[in-house]
């Protein structure tokens, strides 16, 4: 249930410019105020822009990448992508081996 709270933060960032402004002004306070509440660990990971760990916890990747697109929590789209690739390096190597068609 709690990962839903992370997904909702990402989704709200796309739809709510005031929420984005609040995140830029005071990210920690804004994240403390969201409903449903984020778990402590989730808030820490968001503030650190640790999208790899959030992905591991089950956050929705489509929603998560919006943090990079909107350049929140120190992320950009390239740095978002780099962190996901690094987190999943082992799986990516295995996929490449199993799927020669994959680019």
């Amino acid at each position: 249930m709690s990962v839903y709270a992370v997904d909702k933060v990402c989704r709200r960032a796309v739809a709510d410019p005031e929420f984005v402004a609040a995140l830029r002004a005071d990210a920690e306070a804004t994240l403390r105020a969201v409903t449903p509440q984020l778990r402590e660990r989730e808030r820490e990971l968001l503030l650190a822009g640790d999208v790899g760990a959030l992905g591991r916890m089950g956050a929705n990747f489509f929603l998560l990448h919006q943090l990079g697109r909107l350049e929140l929590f120190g992320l950009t789209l390239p740095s978002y992508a780099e962190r996901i690739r690094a987190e999943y390096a082992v799986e990516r190597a295995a996929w490449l081996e199993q799927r020669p068609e994959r680019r």
Partner: protein
Amino acid sequence: MGLLVGALGIPHNPFTALAIARGDGAVDESRRLYGELEARLEAMRADTLIVFTTDHYNLFFELSVPIFAIGVAEATSGPSDYEMLPQFRLAVDGELAAELQAAVVADGFDVGRSQEFQLDHTILAPLGVIRPAMDMAVVPLWISSSMRPIPSAARCLALGAAVGRAVRASALERRVVVAGSGAFSFEVGGPRMSEASHVGVPAPAWALRVTELLAAGDVATVVAEATPERLAAAGNAAGEILNWIAMLGAFAARPASFIAAQGDEGHAYAAWEL
């Protein structure tokens, strides 16, 4: 009487639409392929465009995520999720949409109704390229093909068939085109992205196979092979093929009048003149 006059398969990469809007020469091939669809849509002289699409977490999320839903309103606007794209306000064919909902529910499909909505890039990014005048009413029909559980390919084909029957049975004088929006293999932000981008095409061979099957009119094989396992392996946006399958269900299977793949994008551009 309602008349189904054509069908389109349309990719909806928002960054492509943005590049086209900005005159970027790097997307000349996409501009040319969209141009093909633009000309064919113009020739179809449609009053209404029914678009099977996938809400990208913009409309349905907190309150409810319906497996199927249809938009019944007088007008809408958007795209709601990419403010840098050209913004539009356009008519919704609410009269036909309400008829379609009643007909398909009576036909056994539990399609919900949304009466206040904006459209996202999945409809308005491509439509902004191929019909920027927005002088054609739309009916959005959302299929939940991203958030699991997703409906089966066979169920989406049957839904499309029900929509086709409802259009033909309608007493409304309408020339109707159906469209399916999306890709066959695509990953957005997930671990199977490419080395160079936040997106990727995990199963390019699948995307090309779908294109070849549709060129031959072999819809049944596409439906049979679009299993949950294959769609999961083809990327977190690969369920969008269900939008194409619903579109294909609206008319008897036949080879595409026009189809062209972009293998490195995992999608195709297609048209059927009916």
